[in-house]
């Protein structure tokens, strides 16, 4: 899952990055509104964590602009503006959730999970498909009721495929979701991860669409 954090306070941004990074999310972090607008327009993110008091473009304006452009990624506002009116304004501008600083890190993680789940059209916290069960809260994977030990990277890759079963997920999307902008991506890393997953689960489940990407088979 690839998240975009827009927060102009360095110390706070660093803290959020560490906290969400530990959950296995790929987190990209920008410090001003204009850059964030540009990033959302050109790249794909699964969730936007948005501070409101931003340089160059206020968070609320950014959000309104995104919604006007039919960008429907889930948005969680993280702000110090605690008044009821501010919360209402934030939600009405198109935010899906609103968290007031200072917040509990575990609550932030839970809200991120809930938003991601909802955006994938699910109410169930567990992702289940073809005998694979994936729990985003604990990042545990079960296959045919037996626990499968996966690395965080393998988990993220599987998660990406599980939210769109039967649909091809492109290599670009997968590597962005896994690495964001910060990490250098080795050209064969994705193949290594796929190989590992196939070994741990059933090899038939993840199919390669040559030159395009990967797809999680509807039926093994």
């Amino acid at each position: 899952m690839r998240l975009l954090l827009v927060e102009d306070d360095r110390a706070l941004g660093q803290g959020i990055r560490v906290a969400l990074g530990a959950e296995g999310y790929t987190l990209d972090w920008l410090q001003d509104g204009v850059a964030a607008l540009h990033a959302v327009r050109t790249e794909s993110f699964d969730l936007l964590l948005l501070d409101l008091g931003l340089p160059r473009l206020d968070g609320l304006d950014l959000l309104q602009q995104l919604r006007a452009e039919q960008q429907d990624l889930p948005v969680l506002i993280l702000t110090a503006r605690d008044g009821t009116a501010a919360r209402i304004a934030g939600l009405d501008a198109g935010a899906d959730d609103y968290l007031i600083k200072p917040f509990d890190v575990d609550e932030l993680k839970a809200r991120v999970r809930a938003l991601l789940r909802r955006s994938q059209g699910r109410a169930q916290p567990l992702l289940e498909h073809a005998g694979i069960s994936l729990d985003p809260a604990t990042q545990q994977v079960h296959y045919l009721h037996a626990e499968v030990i996966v690395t965080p990277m393998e988990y993220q890759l599987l998660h990406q495929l599980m939210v769109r079963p039967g649909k091809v997920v492109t290599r670009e999307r997968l590597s962005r979701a896994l690495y964001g902008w910060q990490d250098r991506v080795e050209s064969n890393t994705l193949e290594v991860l796929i190989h590992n997953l196939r070994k741990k689960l059933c090899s038939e489940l993840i199919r390669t669409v040559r030159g395009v990407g990967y797809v999680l088979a509807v039926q093994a």
Partner: protein
Amino acid sequence: MISVRARILVPVLVMILLGDALISWLVLRDSHHEIEEVYDAQLAQSARLLQGVLRQGDAGEADWERLYQAFDQAMSRVGVDGVAHPYETRLTFQVWRSDGELLVRSAEAPVLAAPPATLGAHDLLDNGNEWCAFLLADPQQGLLIWVGERDDIRQDLIQRIMRHTLWPTLIGVPLLTLVIWLVIGWGLKPLRSMARKLRVRQTGSLHPLRLKPLPSDLEPMQTALNRLLLQVEELLARERRFIADAAHELRTPLAILRIHAQNARNAATAEQRHEALDFLVSGVDRATRIGSQLLTMARIEPQLSDPQRSRVQLTELVREELAELTPLALNKGVDLVLEGDEECWVETEPVALAIALQNLVTNALNFSPPGSEVKVVIGDNRLSVEDQGPGIDEADMERLFERFYSRGNANGAGLGLAIVEMIVDKIGCDLRLYNLRQGGLCAELTLSQARAS
């Protein structure tokens, strides 16, 4: 302090009493005189009546006796008869022949050795009694007719008349006092109702007074009061806004503390925990700085409401401040340099200016890379602080002075420039921020030159 009512009533009463006394005295004096004149005229008339009676026929001895009897009888009825007039007097008379022989004398008349020498109205003294009298000469009959009355009796009558004229004054003054008292009360009613409205207002209420109808002379008072209320309200609003701002913006530093504390607890490795704890410590430092800057603001705000400007040797003041900031500069590995005129006198509030300078230099030091230089330049009534840091974005310019905006600087409280702006505003100097062509930021204060002394 005595009440307004008493302040008006006492002088008014004193003036009324004095005026009344003066008028009464004048009235009494004149009317006394006039009454005397009237009584004298009456004496003259009586003398003429007597003369008229005496001319009837040739008066012999017996006639004198009859005249005496009739007159005495008439006079004895004075004040007794049913149709008596309270101001009647007992007249006496005597008649002499021109050669001085006494022909007749009424019983109460004074015994005189000879007729009085003066004709007309006169006073005379007999046996300790004063008499008012009128002497009429009748050369045709060769008679001297004298009519008189006792002065003390006449004075008694006059006193009675006078008393009657004084009664209205004696009753009128207390009545007038009462009326004036009530009228003053009526006149002061708007003031009293204003006072009552103020008294029953809720203690915290700062709503402007809207008293209607209000007499025109209370209008300025209401206006002044409302202006004062408005000032108090603005002051309170500013305080409230400040507290709200502070409480609101402390949320970010608190969020930082909380997230790094939780990260430290959740850290998988010792290295991660160490990193989170480092962030936590610098977060605490930042919160501390915010606290101390808030205190600075609270401390200088009242001082700035009444700035005490004086003539200040700028170089001396700057040198002292820079000496205090040198440890911070050394800590950051930044050179702190002072350049400029030795003699620069300005007219300013020194304490506030020192705080402004301190904030500008601290800002410059915070944005300076190690090994660079922060230069403070004095000259031409200007005081500028130049750094070699990143400068400022055009887009950031307008937010710079916002309270708690720290350009994402993890160490800044975001209050420095807000404090400087507040000071600059109040002590009446000018602040300009601009990027230097060679890189870095220049904060320039323009001060007013001290008058040569």
